[in-house]
């Protein structure tokens, strides 16, 4: 298929070894932030690090010095509880002073426990009430289509537990119906939610088949394999006539042995001794 929407990568492919070091460093930062905050969601933050790197160091057309640049691509974080990862990424990219990260969840801080729109700059939407982000992404994508803007793309990152919300399927249906090919949904499929395994709480599989039935192009990857992440983002940008969903298979709590695949690390911050052990593992 001739791809007339094939957007050139925002930047040349970065060195994978560098990205791997970056992932470790961001994971350390996230854990320090959560430990200082004394509460928050480590598991869901750690599982989506490689995807955020793929977006913010490779695929997104964005400018940290001009967060409201009118030609930027849009990244909407729907799984709001994973916001420590987004804050860490935005700070590292230069959207705001890294010193602010220490204020996460504190009174007066722009870094709310769940994201508030434009607080800090770069956070496109409020989130934390699950299931809403994809509808907003649809709205933005529809507006771009109305305006004949074929350049800008919209990305929306959802959790796998999150898609138990009915609104997600309303939005999935509409995006497929309207052939929103400049829209890419990403499911951070870490297979755990607050009270246990997603498949046990309320089964959502087979993910790709479900989205495919809603007229989405589907790509399934190992979400911790940085190269697969970059490839999937490239492929999504070439698809015509339908939106793309990347089912990113990940590990909740990735990078910290005692957090990995443990639902009890959904919403608990590491205590000082736990932080110390985690940072050693990520050294």
């Amino acid at each position, binding site marked *: 298929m001739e791809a007339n929407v094939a957007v050139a990568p925002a930047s040349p492919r970065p060195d994978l070894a560098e990205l791997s070091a970056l992932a470790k460093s961001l994971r350390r930062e996230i854990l320090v932030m959560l430990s200082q905050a004394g509460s928050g969601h480590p598991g869901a933050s750690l599982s989506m690090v490689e995807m955020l790197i793929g977006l913010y160091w490779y695929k997104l057309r964005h400018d940290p010095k001009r967060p409201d640049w009118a030609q930027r691509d849009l990244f909407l974080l729907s799984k709001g509880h994973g916001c420590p990862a987004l804050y860490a990424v935005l700070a590292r990219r230069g959207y705001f002073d890294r010193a602010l990260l220490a204020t996460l969840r504190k009174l007066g801080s722009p870094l709310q426990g769940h994201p*508030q729109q434009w607080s800090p700059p770069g956070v496109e939407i409020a989130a934390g009430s699950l299931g*809403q982000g994809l*509808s907003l992404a*649809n*709205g933005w994508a529809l*507006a771009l289509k109305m305006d004949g803007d074929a350049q800008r793309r919209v990305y929306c990152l959802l959790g796998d537990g999150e898609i138990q919300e009915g609104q997600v399927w309303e939005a999935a*249906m509409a995006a497929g119906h309207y052939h929103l090919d400049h829209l890419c949904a990403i499911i951070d499929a870490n297979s755990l939610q607050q009270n246990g395994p997603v498949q046990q709480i309320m089964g959502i599989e087979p993910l790709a088949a479900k989205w495919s039935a809603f007229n989405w192009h589907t790509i399934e990857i190992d979400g911790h394999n940085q190269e697969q992440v970059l490839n999937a983002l490239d492929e999504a940008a070439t698809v015509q006539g339908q939106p793309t969903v990347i089912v990113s298979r990940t590990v909740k709590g990735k990078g910290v042995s005692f957090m990995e695949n443990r639902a009890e690390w959904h919403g608990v911050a590491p205590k000082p001794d736990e932080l110390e052990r985690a940072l050693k593992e990520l050294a």
Partner: protein
Amino acid sequence: MTAPVMKPTRDGFGEGLLELGKTNPKVVALSGDLADSTRAIWFQKAYPDRYIEIGIAEQNLIGTAAGLALAGKIPFACSFSAFITGRSWEQIRVAICYQNLNVKIAGSHGGLSVGADGATAEALEEFTIMRSLPNLTVLVPCDVVEARKATLAAAEHVGPVFIRLGRAPVPVVTAAEEPFVIGQASRRRDGKDLTIIACGIMVAAADAAAAQLAGEGTQARVLNMATIKPIDRTAVIAAAQETGAIVTVEEHTVVGGLGGAVAEVVVQDQPVPMRFVGTQDTFGVSGDPAELLKAFHLTADDIVQAAHEVLKIKQSAASNQQSATRRRPR
């Protein structure tokens, strides 16, 4: 006397939206399979490229409208009032109000006057659940003329707005040249004995009640409170100070609606006796709109009765005051 012109407020919304299509290229409309009922269809036919059909999915309707607003559009999300405010309340809360987005929410078929469709379609709770949301402006035009103006004003206003509209034809009681200002009550009649504060289709009934009271020698002030939020505090306090008694009238539950909004001002700033005319914490039923208004005690006669009650309290308070003064030791 010629019979008044009767038109539903939703038609005024449809006319206003159509005008906005011409004058404001940022205006877009969305509906959930109710473009005909909400009159958004007039816009859809004229501006098909700026209309988005969402299907029967109100939560996505609101979310999509929020996304369009993020992109700089001025979306009008249209559906039945019961569904768009109730089913998607939390989407309105987070996606629209928390982000203070420039989305306009139009709820048609508000109130009992939907008639035959019965309780599930008869929205009686929107003022309560909408006005509790920060940043949201809540409008309820009283006739087709005011509905058109409210729609234009909503588009002009930067920030989220909810407009409650009706399906049943109701008397045209305002004139095209009367100004419409969000947040300002309009005084339809002056009086010194009490104030009737009405909204929506009950404004016509309030006028009729005031005329009836005048025949009894009671002079009632009548305010059309087309903005439920922000409530016109100045007009409410003046009514309390200058007339000493207030009756509120709404085609809506008395739990937290117009009556509640007025009372919140009155009890804090200028306590006077009040009576609330509205539905009494109950659901609607099927029936002809006029029959329903009668069955649920939302007529001019009911307003007059509430006026008598509130005047009795006002007078007995005044005479207690006098006798207390007389008993005061020298």
